[in-house]
């Protein structure tokens, strides 16, 4: 929606003035690979599973079983659409409560059978609508945060595009959290931030810089564990190469976690998030 309008600005032009804004535009680039583009390249025997067993199936989140480099892995991913029809079908990648509940069901299913989980984050944010509120958007996100914290299996999270606040974090409590080079992860969209602080959503470029939402920012703040490089110019220039970079990093990270027991994994995840946030004491 907003993102489409913004992409119309030539990337290079905005980039010179605002490097952070360039990242936002790349993260929302209309040709940027989405979750299923990676899953198709990386996973064999992929079987999508549907529904939260409660209300419905949310196409903004894709969950499925698959084989990845010799491992059975549960994939849970936020999915945007490419053309208008797909965008509407995927609700612009904005999940509703039933999407988060489906995701949790899939993750707990993985835990039951001792399978590692890989989640891919790519959303402008959780859907802010009447029906989502009625069905408990906040509760669904909150529950995911708590339950992800105690999954006794390895959880690797990759922010592949837009990490839109709580809507992304609801799939984001991992032992390892990675970002693609041009992905962004933020507490609020630059447009919303600008409309609050400057009373002008047009000043999103400035807000993007102030929010420190680029991958290097999060790495230097100690909030993520690594950055997955993208091909020159961004993942949209060579999606196959982008997928291969991601494959390598995922294998490495799953190997790191493979030897840990369920308790060790839960404690490792706790320790990781427990130390986030500096303060004067």
């Amino acid at each position, binding site marked *: 929606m907003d993102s489409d309008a913004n992409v119309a600005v030539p990337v290079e032009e905005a980039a010179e003035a605002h490097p952070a804004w360039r990242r936002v535009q790349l993260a929302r680039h209309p040709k940027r690979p989405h979750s299923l583009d990676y899953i198709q390249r990386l996973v064999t025997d992929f079987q999508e599973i549907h529904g939260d067993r409660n209300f419905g199936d949310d196409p903004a989140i894709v969950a499925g079983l698959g084989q990845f480099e010799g491992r059975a892995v549960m994939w849970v991913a936020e999915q945007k659409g490419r053309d208008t029809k797909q965008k509407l079908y995927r609700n612009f990648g904005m999940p509703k409560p039933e999407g988060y509940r489906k995701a949790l069901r899939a993750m707990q299913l993985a835990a039951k059978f001792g399978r590692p989980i890989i989640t891919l984050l790519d959303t402008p944010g959780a859907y802010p609508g009447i029906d989502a*509120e009625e069905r408990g958007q906040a509760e669904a996100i909150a529950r995911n945060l708590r339950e992800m914290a105690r999954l006794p299996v390895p959880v690797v999270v990759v922010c592949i595009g837009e990490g839109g606040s709580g809507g992304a*974090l609801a799939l984001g409590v991992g032992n390892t959290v990675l970002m693609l080079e041009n992905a962004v992860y933020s507490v609020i969209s630059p447009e919303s931030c600008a409309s609050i602080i400057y009373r002008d959503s047009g000043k999103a470029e400035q807000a993007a810089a102030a*929010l420190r939402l680029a991958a290097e920012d999060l790495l230097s703040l100690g909030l993520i564990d690594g950055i997955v490089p993208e091909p020159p110019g961004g993942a949209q220039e060579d999606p196959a190469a982008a997928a291969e970079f991601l494959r390598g990093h995922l294998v490495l990270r799953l190997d790191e976690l493979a030897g840990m027991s369920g308790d060790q994994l839960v404690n490792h995840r706790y320790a990781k*998030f427990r130390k986030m946030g500096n303060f004067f*004491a």
Partner: protein
Amino acid sequence: MAWFKRESGELDTSGEKKVRTEGLWVKCESCRQIIWKKDLEDNMNVCPKCDKHFRIDARTRLAQLLDDNQYETFDGNISSTDPLKFVDLMPYSSRLKQAQKDTGLKDAIINSQGKLLGRPVVASVMEYAFIGGSMGAVVGEAITRAVERAADTRMPLIIVSASGGARMMEGVISLMQLAKISAALARLDEAKVPFISLLTDPTTGGVTASFAMLGDLNIAEPGALIGFAGPRVIEQTIRQKLPEGFQRSEFLLKHGMLDAVVPRLEMKAYISTALKFFVD
């Protein structure tokens, strides 16, 4: 036909009158009745005429919940580092200083330990007057410590929420506090120590989407605004006016998101009775 007519609607008398009566009287924003301030305070800041629950600060809340206004406070010394050096219309560091001066707190939270009808409890209360009760690293850390204190001491935990959500000025660090606190609550859950989440006006954004919705009981005061997205954001998304009562406590109760809506005057007794069920 009248010789004179008022051209600009109703007279605005709210500001002026308050000054003349030197704050002895307040006007209820709900029923518009004039109330003697002492009557309001004696009634726990609930309008005696229409039951409108006025917003109260964290210290008043603690005085209402804990016996004899006696409690020990903890973690009041931690303060924000302004990790992003964030500047909007004014620097975040100045905003912090101003809020600290206005509230006498280092950040938007008071951690305490006291007794509720004789039962020792850990109570963590958010202060809305401090930058909208927003949650950055300090609030996140303080609430996590309160959760850990409850788990360690096995004292029941009460968190009183009043917040606009995550604190924008600390960026994604604020966001990660949702995960940090929720992870601590998973441990508290496993320790089987009761956690009562009390949601008050307003509780929105990342606070609702984390600890506020994770109580063993989620209870709210009447008429409180509670939601994930703020009403303005939703209106902009769907481009229509929201129905009356949308995202109020009673709406959430109806949709199954709350265990109960509890009037302030009954709150202490309600929590005490619930804790008796869980613990004794």
